[in-house]
Every structure is written in structure tokens, then in C-alpha cells.
């Protein structure tokens, strides 16, 4: 027979561990905080550049510095409980009441549509029809019906936020698979038991998706309501500042307003993580 040949190197000197490094592209290896700071700096830098080169009029786009100064002014006003805080509180009330209403109505309609054949056949088509309408166009109607107080804004906010919650709930109730349904049947479960012990918990991820979309919509509804229906909320402050061409003020008011929206979203997200603890983090969530 032939000699047994190995592919090991003949001399000890070349014998080494086969250790090598996998290449990772630089852009994928940047830590999160550096990446975020980088984007922020580029954004502010471009903004600064555009304003200092005089490319646009200062009335249309104030410098970052002017905006920062105004943010500090607005922040101080809010912290000292001045008129801006009063306005902000009105808007927050509209958002909270509007969201609560949207959850109550949206969830009930969602169960009706998702659980009963009647709801699916007779109610869903109308909901789809209304959902395709530009809901903001109803704002004058709400003002006419409910006046210039917070009621008309609550109504518009709830109106906009209801539909995603209906859709999320109905989709959630359809999420249970055939096996789970069959299993519940073989256990002799009643319709109510199947709904409460199986279909609703199974559908919680979709229901929460609806709630998150609703949380964004309720904010937009409240502010649109204030733009179109007056009142004393934060939207009114923005409208007045804009009409005075006080652009730095508009910017800083929007920024503080977005904090309210963000807070609402984070609360829903946090609740979801606590309630739907078994759900794996989806792609695109904040902690990756």
C-alpha cells in the first residue's frame, strides 16, 4: 500500500491554531450611542449650515441656536406652571380621555366584528367605509355638535384612534390557529371560554399594535381639533405662534408636544411588554 500522507505541516514551526477573525463591516460595528450622536450632529450641522449660508430666510427657518433659546424659554414657562403648562394640561386631558374612549369603543367593536358572523357581515363594511373617509374633515361637525370646549377635540381624537384598535382587535381574534380552536372544542369549551381563555390572549400582540397606532392617531386628532376648533390647548399656542411668524416658538412647541406623544407610546409599549410577556421582541423595537 502507499504511505499514509497527512496534510499536517512537516515542521513544528508552522503548526498553529487555525484562528481567524470574521470581517464585520465598519458601519455595522458602530455602537448605538455613537451612531445616534453622529446622525444628530449631522442633522444639526446641516441645519446650521443652511441658516448661516443664508439659503433660506430666518423667518422660514430659524437657526438651531434661536430654537434652543426658545426651547429653554418654553421649558421654563412649563416648569413654572405658567400659561403654557395650563395649555399643555388641556391637551393632555384631551389625549387621555380620547384614548380611553377609543379603547373602550374600539375594543367592543373589534370583538363584535372579530367574534360574530353578524359583526363581520353587517358592521365591518360600514367601518371600512368610514375608515376610508378623511376623518379630519369631520372636525367642523364635532365643533358644531359639541362646541369649542375640549369635548369636540376629545371626539375627534377618539374618532381617529378608534379604527386601528377595531382592526387590531378583530385581527387578533382571528390569529388563533386551527389546532388551538380544535383543542378548545375537544375540551368542551363554551364560546365565552374560548374567547376569553384563548382567542383574546392569542390576539394580544395584534391588539397592542392597534393600540400603538391609535396612540399616535389620538395625538394628531387632539391637535387637529385644536387647530380647527380653537380652545385653549397646546395646538392653539402653535397656531398663534405660526400666525405671528414666530417660527422658533413653533419648533419648540412641537418638540415639547412630541414628548407627550412619545410618553403615551412608551406607556403602551411598556404595558405590552408586561402583559404580553411571552412575545419575542420584534424587529425594529428600540432595544434591537
Amino acid at each position, binding site marked *: 500500500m502507499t504511505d499514509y500522507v497527512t496534510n499536517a505541516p512537516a515542521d513544528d514551526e508552522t503548526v498553529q491554531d487555525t484562528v481567524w477573525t470574521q470581517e464585520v463591516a465598519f458601519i455595522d460595528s458602530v455602537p448605538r450611542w455613537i451612531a445616534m450622536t453622529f446622525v444628530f450632529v449631522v442633522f444639526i450641522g446641516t441645519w446650521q449650515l443652511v441658516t448661516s449660508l443664508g439659503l433660506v430666510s430666518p423667518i422660514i427657518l430659524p437657526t438651531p441656536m434661536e430654537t434652543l433659546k426658545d426651547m429653554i424659554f418654553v421649558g421654563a414657562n412649563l416648569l413654572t406652571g405658567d400659561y403654557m403648562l395650563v395649555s399643555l394640561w388641556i391637551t393632555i386631558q384631551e389625549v387621555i380621555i380620547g384614548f380611553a374612549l377609543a379603547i373602550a369603543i374600539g375594543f367592543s367593536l373589534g370583538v363584535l366584528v372579530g367574534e360574530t358572523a353578524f359583526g363581520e357581515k353587517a358592521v365591518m363594511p360600514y367601518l371600512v367605509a368610514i375608515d376610508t373617509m378623511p376623518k379630519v374633515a369631520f372636525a367642523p361637525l364635532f365643533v358644531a355638535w359639541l362646541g369649542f370646549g375640549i369635548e369636540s377635540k376629545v371626539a375627534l381624537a377618539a374618532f381617529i384612534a378608534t379604527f386601528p384598535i377595531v382592526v387590531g382587535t378583530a385581527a387578533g381574534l382571528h390569529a388563533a390557529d386551527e389546532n388551538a380552536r*380544535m383543542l378548545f372544542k*375537544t375540551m368542551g369549551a363554551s364560546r365565552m371560554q374560548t374567547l376569553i*381563555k384563548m382567542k383574546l390572549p392569542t390576539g394580544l400582540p395584534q391588539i397592542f399594535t392597534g393600540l400603538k397606532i391609535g396612540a399616535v392617531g389620538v395625538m394628531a386628532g387632539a391637535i387637529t381639533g385644536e387647530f380647527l376648533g380653537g380652545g385653549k390647548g397646546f395646538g392653539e399656542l402653535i397656531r398663534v405662534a405660526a400666525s405671528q411668524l414666530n417660527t422658533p416658538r413653533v419648533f419648540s412647541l412641537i418638540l415639547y408636544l412630541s414628548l407627550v406623544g412619545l410618553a403615551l407610546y412608551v406607556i403602551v409599549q411598556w404595558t405590552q411588554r408586561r402583559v404580553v410577556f411571552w412575545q419575542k421582541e420584534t424587529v425594529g423595537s428600540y432595544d434591537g
Partner: protein
Amino acid sequence: MNTAVAHDYSGAPLGAPVYELTEVSKTYARNHVIALENVSLTLRKGSFTSVIGSSGCGKSTLLKIMAGLIPPTTGRVMLQNRAVTGPRRDIGMMFQQATLFPWKTAVENIVLPIEIRDGKAAANKALDKATELLDIVGLKGFENVYPNELSGGMAQRASICRMLITEPAVLLLDEPFSALDELSRDMMNMELQRICREQEATAFLVTHSIQEAVILSDEIVVMKPRPGRIAEVVTVDLPRPRTLDMMTTPKFGEIVDRIRGMLDKGEDM
């Protein structure tokens, strides 16, 4: 039917009939399809019966009728001398997917059938029994683990416990391990045999695998489609308890070949 040579898991002659189907037929009125025609079948206490056949042979319809999920068009369906007119406590069922609910721990999933039938208090009382069952299927220590942390095979073991918690008189198994890889499947089949022996269970298995049917069963019901009917009942007289080694014996191969021959003829129709 030839039941003369059938024995239970310990080798003793079979017990009394537990589940009896007499001339059962099912016609779907909507499209005039005859899903089942004159199916008669007896499951004896402590026996293991498999049903095998190509798709459309009516085996899922048969299983649904036996589980009380759908009514037959004609015929008698009797479990423990009572007509099956709906889902019942003494019927245990297991599916291809483990279908454990992720918001419940392993034991909570196992006592779910009791929670549904008797309420939360009764379910809490059954927790000890669920823990015992987990021990039997080799999942001791996994009582308070959520299903996300269980492998496919472990999840199916837990779903066996859920099926056994109500002490059913008959176990209906709908391709229970077909979603597992082959190594796990063989192992789970041996586990299933052991559990059935210990519990003296009467089992009815729907499967696509001839090998699986032969290694587990006392009798194999071969079904043919259009209309769905029983073509033949094959008695498997391999000794008990079965081991995986038996799959290489000539006798095993003979039975497998015989069943495959019957199924091939069915394809031409």
C-alpha cells in the same frame, strides 16, 4: 375483524370493547362527497390501533367523528356504552402541533382541560397530578417553565400530559409527532408506548408513516379513498414491548411491505 391474536401491552388477551363504531358513514351535503362509507371498528381496552391511508381516505373525518367534533350521517358511535354526541371528558386528544399556550406555564397548560370543564379551583387542585404526569413523561423540574423554553419534543411530552390529566378512556392521536425530526419521533414513539402501557390506555393513532404504525400498533386499519372506507385490518403480532431494534427484523419488513402494497393499489383508483 380478526382480533383473535390481539394482546394488550403486557401480552394478556385484550379487554372489553371501549370504543365501538357500527356502519358509520359521513356524507358532506354541500358537495355530495362521501367522506366515509360503512366504517365499523372496535377498540378494546388497552389496545393500540392505527389508521393509515392516502390523503382523502377519510381518516381525519373518522377522527373528528370519534372526537365528537362532527356528527356522522348514519351509524352508531359508542364510547363506554354511551353514544358520542359531542366532545367528552373521557376522550383525550393530541394534535400534530403541541399547541401549548405561551401565557401559561407547563403545569397550567396541562390542567387547562380541567380549568375549562370544572373551573379554576378544580384546576388548582389538579396541579399536583399534573406535576406527577410531567414526571412520568420525563419532564420533572419543568413544571413552571413557559412553553417558549421547551423544545418541540418536550412540548409534545407536555401535551401528552394535558391529554392524560382527565384520565380519558380513549386517546385519539392525530399524527402527534409528525412535526418532529426523525430521531425525536422514534424516541417519542417508544415513550408513547411506555406511557400507554403504564396507563393501560386505549389508543387510536392517525399516521402517514407505515413504520410508525407497525412499531406501535396491535392492529392497523388500512383505509382507501373515494369513498373513504376500511380496506383491510392488519394484525401486528410482534411481541410486546416493542423496541426500535424490531424495525430491522424480517417480520417487521414483511408487515410494512404488505401494507405498502395495499396503499399502492389504492393510489390507482
